[in-house]
């Protein structure tokens, strides 16, 4: 009897273990719709960054308020990795039907900007040529792995909401939708909050009862694993200040086409009004800062609002007495004009010795100092390599009160 019981227990346990093991195996080999979609996105990005010489991306969005289009935009971006050039053309339609077109061309030597509101073409030449990557894989970016893990955790058991339809020719169609009951309440609140903060100006200002009504999307992936189109829709509902309900939908469509059949043509500027400038290099890091150049007096005005006007209340003076690549010393003081003493609640006057801040990069120095009234002051100095200006930022800017200006201009005698 004893033996039989043990065998039964052992058998049951083994069966349980086998069940877990086989299901786990099945689970690992089976990829949920979400995982397949993620794989397709990654694969497409990797191919765009490695395999394809050139391609065209078309990204457009439409925002509708109760079914009426309030804003839409279409950006066609042509990318040529071989020649390292890109051309993007955007057309924006505003609520009143106004159209704005803009164009942006970039290669290592040149950058051309044009928009329909301004007749001139702005051309920037880079000499020597700048370091320029026409396309970079977002999944290879720093921190992309962490973002992915967080997204995975948030998605959790919603992974299986992505439905995959496999076609006989090997292409796949993904689709998925979440309605208000299916969206986790926390995500709904976060998205609603974001939407409330960042809503486009032409939209009615939603003030209450904002919630995400629906999120849906679909995607087409061809048999080579390239995502050709991705459509996402977000439907928000809310009331404006008058209590009227608005259903606002945002549709974003991204398409990938013209693989190895896209030509990036530099805009023809002959006969056009052109404004040119030349930049030694677009990457500022290559420019070296010589702190010695900044020895001297720098000032800016203390400006306050009084009687509905901006009024000069005094002067901030930053006097750099010594500067080299490692240290900078000097003095900072604020002087208020007679009659403006009441504004001088945060008045500062101190000497400092700042040291090169390794995190701040070139031209950034940090300091700790003691003010005239004995309080601790710390902050950073930034020397602008392109301009003879100094930025002085204090830690705990709140202490400085509103209206503190961190940019100091040189005083030429």
């Amino acid at each position: 009897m004893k033996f039989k019981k043990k065998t039964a227990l052992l058998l049951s346990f083994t069966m349980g273990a086998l069940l877990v093991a086989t299901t786990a195996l099945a689970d690992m080999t089976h990829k949920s719709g979400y995982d397949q979609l993620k794989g397709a996105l990654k694969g497409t990005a990797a191919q765009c960054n490695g395999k394809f010489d050139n391609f065209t991306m078309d990204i457009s969005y439409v925002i509708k308020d109760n079914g009426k289009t309030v804003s839409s935009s279409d950006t066609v971006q042509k990318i040529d990795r071989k020649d390292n050039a890109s051309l993007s053309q955007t057309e924006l339609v505003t609520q009143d039907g106004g159209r704005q077109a803009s164009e942006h061309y970039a290669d290592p030597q040149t950058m051309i900007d044009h928009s329909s509101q301004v007749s001139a073409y702005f051309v920037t030449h880079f000499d020597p040529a700048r370091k320029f990557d026409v396309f970079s894989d977002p999944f290879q970016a720093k921190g992309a792995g962490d973002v992915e893990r967080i997204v995975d955790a948030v998605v959790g058991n919603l992974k299986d909401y992505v439905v995959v339809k496999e076609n006989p020719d090997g292409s796949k169609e993904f689709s998925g939708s979440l309605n208000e009951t299916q969206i986790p309440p926390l995500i709904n609140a976060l998205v609603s909050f974001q939407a409330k903060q960042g809503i486009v100006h032409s939209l009615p200002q939603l003030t209450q009862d904002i919630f995400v009504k629906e999120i849906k999307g679909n995607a087409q992936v061809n048999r080579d694993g390239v995502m050709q189109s991705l459509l996402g829709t977000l439907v928000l509902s809310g009331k404006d200040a008058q209590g009227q309900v608005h259903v606002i939908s945002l549709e974003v469509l991204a398409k990938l086409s013209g693989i190895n059949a896209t030509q990036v043509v530099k805009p023809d500027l002959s006969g056009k009004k052109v404004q040119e400038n030349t930049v030694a290099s677009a990457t500022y890091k290559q420019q070296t800062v010589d702190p010695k150049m900044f020895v001297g007096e720098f000032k800016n005005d203390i400006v306050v609002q009084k009687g509905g006007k901006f009024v000069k209340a005094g002067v901030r003076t930053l006097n750099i007495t010594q500067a080299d690549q490692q240290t900078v010393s000097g003095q900072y003081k604020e002087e208020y004009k007679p009659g403006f003493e009441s504004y001088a609640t945060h008045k500062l006057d101190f000497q400092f010795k700042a040291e090169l801040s390794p995190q701040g990069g070139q031209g950034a120095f940090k300091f700790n100092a003691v003010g005239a009234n004995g309080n601790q002051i710390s902050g950073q100095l930034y020397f602008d390599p392109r301009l003879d200006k100094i930025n002085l930022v204090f830690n705990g800017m709140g202490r400085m009160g509103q209206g503190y200006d961190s940019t100091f201009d040189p005083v030429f005698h």
Partner: protein
Amino acid sequence: MAVFKTALINEVEKLSKKKKAWVAVILSLAVIVVGQLVILAVRSGFGLRGVGSGEFPLLVLSLVVNTILPLFAALVAIDSFSGESAQNTLRITLTRPVSRFKVFTAKIGAIALFLLGALVLLFVFSVLAGLLFNASSLTWSDFFRLVLSFLVSLLPLVVLALGIVLLTNVARSGITVFFLAILAFLLLKVLGLVFSGYADLLPTAQLDWYNLWLADVFPVAAVVRQFLLMLGYGVMFFVAGFYLFDQKEL
């Protein structure tokens, strides 16, 4: 069967006499009250709707299923096994003419009933609160979905309780088991976060599997897989737990 029934009634009665049962009831109600207050604050403060009446119970479920319900499972499991061992009352139960298997099963049954009771309580009060304080958006199909979500959540909780029962039969002291259980729970959750690709396989991942039951296109394969995983884990925990319980010298 009659013997098992008596044993089960006995276990349920013991459980209901405990203060812990009342603590669970009060905690459940507190979650609902606090949840509703937060929603009201968000609504008036940020202008967000937060939830409609149909979603409030799901919000409550999503919160409790990963927090207080596992805690209840741990409390009653520990009380039913470690607690009785410590107070030497387990000896009284075991001297009755009931086999150890039946006692063990009756205890598990009582724990499952307790968890079901907690779910029912949470369901009833969250639906009531949802209807009273939120813009009405509850339809019959939503109601059915809600019932389903709460019901299916029982299974992963019972599996979790079985895991904790196994722990109570490994370690003697109730406090040790309690901390071990919490540590294991957190560890599994963290592992799920780190190895997000394999998170589904952990016994804590199924706690919010009710989400699967809410999908428009019912994900049969995923539901079956998760069910089989839970079944497998459940059987393993049950058998191992019973083996140790059976071997126990009093």
